[in-house]
């Protein structure tokens, strides 16, 4: 998505707006109220475009009353009236059909949406007749993937699984951890110091430490970044194996080393035996000549050394 200043200002605006909202919230796993007690903060987003379609991504942190506006330049020939309507997640919204007039050589559709919880997030589209549309993708900040391959650890050992919300994305209110137990996601609570699980939360990241691993601990783990509007998840797979697994290649390679070393040394032994039996007589003559050479060489080198 191309970076735009409008997006950034909108972002900051939402952040400032949410600061006011946070003071009324209590920390802990209480679900955000469906019907807010105080009136929702408002925000708006306007897109001017030509052509057939356009996509806008919006990061939503807190419940907001969002006004979405689409302004379309139109196609030739430009009809004076055109039907426009809204869709959410691909399905038409009831009572959203209306006739749009051509004003200032443009068509304009506007609607207010109450974004209050996770269901309110998703894809909102404004549609001009059957010709053009804008998709607004509303989502809470996405967590960067921890690791695409599984984290490997050992029975009896401990493991640390991190989760981080990258800068410059807004930091979540808190973090939650879940484990996939086959059917559903089960939340992990790090109760006390004696517990096997340990959760350490800091503003931008969280760490789940699991002690005394067993093979049953293998599986998918989810870290959830909790925002007022929704919780975004990222997952990572944990694989717990026994120490036997790496032991097999270890022993295999050690055996290979022992075999090679023995083979090389035995080969050398056989070679030297061959040499000693073959050239015994020749050697004594040669050594005589060598001794002579050695003696004269000694004299030369000793003379040279005197010069140093």
């Amino acid at each position: 998505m191309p970076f735009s200043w409008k997006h950034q200002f909108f972002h900051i605006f939402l952040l400032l707006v949410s600061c006011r909202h946070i003071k009324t919230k209590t920390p802990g796993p209480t679900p955000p109220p469906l019907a807010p007690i105080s009136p929702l903060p408002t925000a708006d987003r306007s897109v001017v475009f030509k052509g057939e379609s356009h996509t806008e991504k919006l990061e939503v942190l807190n419940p907001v009353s969002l006004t979405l506006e689409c302004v379309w330049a139109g196609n030739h020939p430009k009809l004076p009236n055109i039907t426009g309507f809204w869709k959410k997640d691909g399905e038409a919204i009831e009572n959203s059909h209306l006739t749009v007039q051509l004003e200032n050589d443009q068509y304009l559709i506007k609607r207010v949406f109450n974004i209050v919880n996770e269901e309110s997030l998703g894809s909102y589209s404004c549609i001009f007749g059957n010709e053009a549309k804008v998709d607004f993708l509303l989502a809470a900040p996405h967590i960067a993937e921890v690791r695409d391959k599984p984290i490997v650890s050992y029975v009896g050992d401990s493991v640390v699984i991190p989760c981080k919300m990258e800068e410059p994305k807004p930091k979540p209110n808190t973090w939650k951890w879940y484990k996939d137990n086959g059917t559903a996601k089960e939340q992990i609570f790090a109760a006390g110091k004696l517990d096997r699980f340990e959760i350490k939360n800091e503003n931008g990241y969280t760490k789940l430490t699991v002690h005394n691993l067993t093979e049953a601990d293998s599986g998918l783990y989810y870290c959830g970044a909790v925002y007022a509007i929704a919780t975004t998840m990222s997952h990572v797979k944990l694989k717990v194996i026994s120490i036997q697994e790496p032991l097999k290649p270890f022993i295999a390679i050690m055996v290979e080393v022992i075999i090679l070393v023995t083979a090389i040394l035995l080969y050398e032994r056989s070679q030297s035996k061959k040499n000693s039996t073959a050239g015994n007589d020749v050697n004594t003559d040669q050594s005589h000549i060598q001794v002579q050479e050695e003696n004269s060489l000694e004299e030369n080198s000793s003379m040279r050394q005197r010069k140093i």
Partner: protein
Amino acid sequence: MPPAATTSLGYSPPDGGWGWAVVFGSFISIGFSYAFPKSLTIYFKEIQEYFSVSYSEIAWVSSVMLASMYAGGPVSSVLVNRYGSRPVVMVGGVMVGTAMLLASFGTSIMHLYLCVGLIGGFGLAFNLQPALTIIGTYFQVKRPLANGLAMTGSPVILSTLAPLNQFLFDSFGWRGSFLILGSICLNCCVAGSLMRPVTKVVPPKPAKSESKSQSCAERFIDFSLFKHRGFLIYLVGNVVLFFGFFAPVVFLAPYAKHQGIDEYSAALLLTIFALVDMFIRPVTGFLGNTKLVRPKIQYFFSFAVSYNGICHLLCPLLPGYAGLVGYAVILGLGFGMVSALLFEVLMDLVGAHRFSSAVGLVTIIECGPVLLGPPISGALVDAYGDYKYMYYACGVFMLAPGIFLFVMHYFNYKKLEEEQRQSVAVEMRTSEETVQLNMSQKHTHCW
């Protein structure tokens, strides 16, 4: 200074045959020594999370390992002087293997410093020195080529270990990977078993006059090297150049990312660098062996060092990704050339007999600049917020010693020629026949 290494060796090296198996063994040992510490960085992020430590604390594991590897040089030299290369390399392989095995059961970061860092580093030192030394005992005529081939082990093993480590990490996590890496490092023992002591046709009585002046040296370390002109030139040049040698490679990817290049393209730069490096090392060895270069191989080394310096000075001027690719290529050329010649020129200066002590002394003194180089460069980058000052600094750190080496070796060669003329005159007076034999040997490596 006795220029003829053959006479100080006392025998005629095979220059082939089993020597090539020894080169292969050295290839493995040298490769592991240089590549292993670098390849471990892949595990750091997970270990950092596991022990809840900062990144700099985990990066210390690499630094301790590198420091131990360099500091262990003299110890390694003493042992090689005493027992030969083979036992030391095999002990080294067992040490690294045991270190990684123990580390896989580690319960604290201190545990890792001790096992991976200290014991592992020493084990690698016991691999590096003997592997370099034994090449000098097997080769004389083809020695630059043998050295170039052996040093190619570093980029080759690094390119192998990098994806292997990634695979191990994905399959077994860090503990299992350390366990398996322990067994992989035991392959250094296989390399060691290849390092058969060279069969010297030596008389039963060792040369008395030689042993008198060198018996103490052979026992421990040959400190008389500090009076050796060539050794001192080498030492001074190397200490300065190592400040600027590794940093440009370490910062290549971050520099690329700083310029807005994405991670994969930045990683590709390192791959290009490694491939060029891999290719140029044996080529440099081969060139060093040619009749034209071999007698004046010190100039070749000085050229390689100066070339590196000029590359670093030019780097900031090269724009865009294409410029960086070009820089990665010329950096690979320069890095490979210097690496291939690094120990060959030392052997050339001090002779294979004293090489073991020389390399031990050199590595422990180089420990400082090797460890300080990247952090100083990092500090320069942080201070100015720009990479170009770091590249200028590294350029100077390499160009200055390059020029120094050119000049000093010009004088050194002159002096050596003079000494040789004098010694030749003396020899001709003593024995005709042995002189003819020596002359034919000397022709192959005129200094």
